[in-house]
C-alpha cells in the first residue's frame, strides 16, 4: 500500500460522520440514477418491442414515380454523349401494384427476416350490440406472424381456428369488448354496400389502444373479395434481423423498389422523442443528488484540510511532496467514491429488481401489468461516471489547496 493511500485511509476516520453522509449521498445518487434509467429505458424498449411486434420494422407503401427525365444535350455539331437531368418532381401513386414482385425483391436483402403483404380498408362492422367503423387488414397469417408478435398477442381463442376457417377473423381486444365479441361469435363487415359475415377466431391485444380498437385481421383472399381488390396491396410490412439498421435498410430498399419505405424510427419519432426527453430529464434530476453529494464531499474535504494543516506541514517536513499531499486528499475522495459507487450499483440493482415487481396496469401505447425495466450495464457505467466526475472534481479543489500550503507558514501559524 502506498504511503499516501495509507495516510488517506486514516484521515478518512477524522470526519467519519461527514464522510459517511457523502458516501450515502453518492450511493443513493448512483442507485436512483440506475433505477430511473432502468425504468425509462425499460418503458422505451417495451414500446419499441410493441411497435415492432405490431407494425414491423419497415413499412413499404406508395410508389414514387419520378417526373424528372434525362435529356440529351445538344452540342454545337449536333448530338452529345452528355445527359442533362431535367428539373421535375415526384409523383406518389398510392399502394403497391405488384406486391409479390416487390416482396420477392425485398426478401433478397440480407437483414430482412420476414415480409407480409397487407391489404387494408376501412369498413363498417355490425354486431347485435352496435356498429363501428373498423380497419380491416387482409393478411397471409403465416407471413404476418413472421413480421409481428400477433401469435403472442392472442388473449382469447386460437390461431389454429383462424387458419382453418376461411371466414375467420382476429379482433382487437378493445373492439371485442365494445361489441361484446368472443371467439365463436359472428359479425358483419360491410363495404361498398356489400356485407359479409365473419366469425371471431381469436381476440388479440397489442396494448396499443389505437390498434386494438379498430383493427380486424382477416385472410388476404377474403379481404380482396370484401374490398373488391383482386390485385395489389396497401402496404408491405417488413421485419428485420437487426432493427437498429432500419433507417439504412429503408434507404437502400427504397432506392431499389421505388416505393416509399418508412423505418420504425421515423414512424414513431414523436413517441421516441418523448421517451428520450423523459430519460434525459430523469437523469438530470437524479444527477442533482450526486451533485449535492459532491458538494458535501467538497465541504468535508475542505474541513479536513483545515483541520490537518499541521499534519500536512509535518508530512511536508518529512519529504512528502506537494503531489503526495494532493494525492492523500484525492485518495480520500476516490475511496468514498469507490465505496459509494459499489454500494450504489448494488442498491440500484436491488431497487430495479424491486421496481420490476411493482404492479401497474398500462394500456394505450403498450400493454403491461407491472413496471417494465431494462437491465443495461451502460446505466451503471453512466451513473458511476457522473459520480466519478463530480466527486473527483469536488476532491481536486481541497487537494490542490492542501498541496499549496507552505509548511513554514503553517508551523509559524500564518497559513490559511
Amino acid at each position, binding site marked *: 500500500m502506498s*504511503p499516501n493511500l495509507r495516510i488517506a485511509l486514516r484521515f478518512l476516520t477524522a470526519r467519519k460522520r461527514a464522510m459517511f453522509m457523502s458516501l450515502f449521498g453518492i450511493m443513493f445518487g448512483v442507485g436512483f440514477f440506475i433505477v430511473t434509467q432502468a425504468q425509462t429505458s425499460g418503458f422505451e424498449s417495451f414500446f419499441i418491442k410493441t411497435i415492432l411486434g405490431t407494425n414491423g420494422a419497415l413499412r413499404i407503401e406508395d410508389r414514387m414515380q419520378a417526373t424528372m427525365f434525362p435529356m440529351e444535350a445538344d452540342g454545337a455539331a449536333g448530338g452529345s454523349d452528355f445527359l442533362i437531368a431535367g428539373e421535375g418532381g415526384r409523383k406518389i401513386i398510392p399502394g403497391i401494384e405488384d406486391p409479390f414482385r416487390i416482396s420477392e425483391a425485398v426478401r433478397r436483402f440480407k437483414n430482412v427476416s420476414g415480409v407480409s403483404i397487407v391489404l387494408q380498408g376501412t369498413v363498417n362492422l355490425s354486431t347485435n350490440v352496435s356498429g363501428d367503423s373498423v380497419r380491416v387488414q387482409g393478411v397471409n397469417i403465416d407471413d404476418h406472424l413472421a413480421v409481428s408478435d400477433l401469435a403472442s398477442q392472442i388473449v382469447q381463442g386460437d390461431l389454429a381456428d383462424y387458419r382453418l376457417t376461411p371466414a375467420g377473423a382476429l379482433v382487437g381486444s378493445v373492439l371485442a369488448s365494445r361489441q361484446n365479441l368472443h371467439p365463436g361469435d359472428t359479425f358483419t363487415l360491410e363495404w361498398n354496400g356489400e356485407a359479409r359475415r365473419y366469425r371471431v377466431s381469436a381476440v388479440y391485444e397489442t396494448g396499443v389502444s389505437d390498434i386494438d380498437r379498430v383493427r380486424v385481421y382477416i385472410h388476404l383472399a377474403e379481404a380482396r373479395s370484401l374490398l373488391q381488390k383482386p390485385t395489389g396491396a396497401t402496404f408491405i410490412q417488413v421485419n428485420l434481423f437487426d432493427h437498429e439498421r432500419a433507417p439504412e435498410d429503408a434507404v437502400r430498399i427504397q432506392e431499389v423498389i421505388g416505393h416509399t419505405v418508412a423505418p420504425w424510427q421515423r414512424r414513431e419519432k414523436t413517441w421516441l422523442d418523448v421517451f428520450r426527453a423523459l430519460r434525459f430529464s430523469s437523469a438530470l434530476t437524479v444527477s442533482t443528488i450526486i451533485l449535492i453529494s459532491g458538494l458535501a464531499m467538497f465541504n468535508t474535504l475542505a474541513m479536513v484540510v483545515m483541520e490537518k494543516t*499541521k499534519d500536512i506541514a509535518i508530512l*511536508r517536513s*518529512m*519529504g512528502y511532496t*506537494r503531489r*503526495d499531499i494532493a494525492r492523500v486528499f484525492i485518495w480520500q475522495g476516490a475511496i468514498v467514491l469507490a465505496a459509494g459507487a459499489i454500494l450504489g450499483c448494488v442498491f440500484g440493482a436491488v431497487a430495479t429488481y424491486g421496481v420490476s415487481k411493482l404492479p401497474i396496469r398500462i394500456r394505450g401505447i403498450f400493454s403491461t401489468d407491472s413496471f417494465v425495466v431494462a437491465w443495461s450495464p451502460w446505466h451503471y457505467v453512466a451513473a458511476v461516471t457522473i459520480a466519478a466526475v463530480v466527486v473527483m472534481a469536488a476532491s481536486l479543489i481541497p487537494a490542490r489547496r492542501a498541496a499549496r500550503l507552505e509548511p*513554514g507558514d503553517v508551523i509559524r501559524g500564518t497559513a490559511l
Partner: protein
Amino acid sequence: MTAAGPVLRCAGLHRYLGHGAGRVHVLRGVSFEAERGCVHAIVGPSGCGKSTLLYQLGLLDRPDDGQIWINGETISNSSDALRTAARGRHLGFVFQFHFLLLEFTALENVMMPMRKFGRLDEAGMATRARRLLDEVGLGDKTHRLGTELSGGEQQRVAVARALANEPAVILADEPTGNLDQSNSAMVFDLLARLARENGQAVVLVTHNPEIARRSDRVLAMRDGVFV
C-alpha cells in the same frame, strides 16, 4: 565541501515577513555553520528571528536573499521538489508541539518518513522504528496511538521520527518548550547523545537557559542577527 566541513551552512540570509506597513525585516543577513556531532543552541528574545532562521535552515521557507548549503550543495534557490527531497534525505525536525499524526500509532509515526524515503522494506522499517522507539524509552508503547501518549512521550516519538532516515541535521524548534523539567532534560539528553553517537548536527532553538548551557555551542540572536 567534505564530510569534515560544516554539514549545514547559510550565509547572508534575509527574510521579510508580512505585507505593506506590517512588513518586518526578520532576518538581517544571518550567517551560520552547523558541525557534525555538535549541539548548537540558538537563543534570544521572542520575535528575534530564531524560529524563522530554523525554518529557513530546514527548507520549510524560502529566504528573500542569501544562500543555504547542505553537505556542500546549494539548496536555498532550488525547486520545491529538490528542497522537499533534501528535507527527506538530510533533515529531521522536532517541533515544540510534537506534531504527531494522531490517527497513527507511535510505530507508524516513526515509520512515516521511512515510507516516503523508501530505502527499507516493510519489515526493515518496522525493525528500525522499534529500535528508535526503544532508544527513546518507548519500546513498550509502540502500538499506542498519538492520543494515548503523554506530552513527554509524544515528544520522544517526535525525536525518534526525526531520526528515522538518519538525517545529517536535526532541527528542533523549542523541543522542550512544552515539557516539564524532567521531560525536558530527558529529550535534550536524548538529542545530544544520539547526535554525538551518530555524528549528526543538532540545531535547536530554545528559551531554556539550562538547555543552552548544556549545548556545545550557543548563538545569541537579537533583531535578526547573531550578536
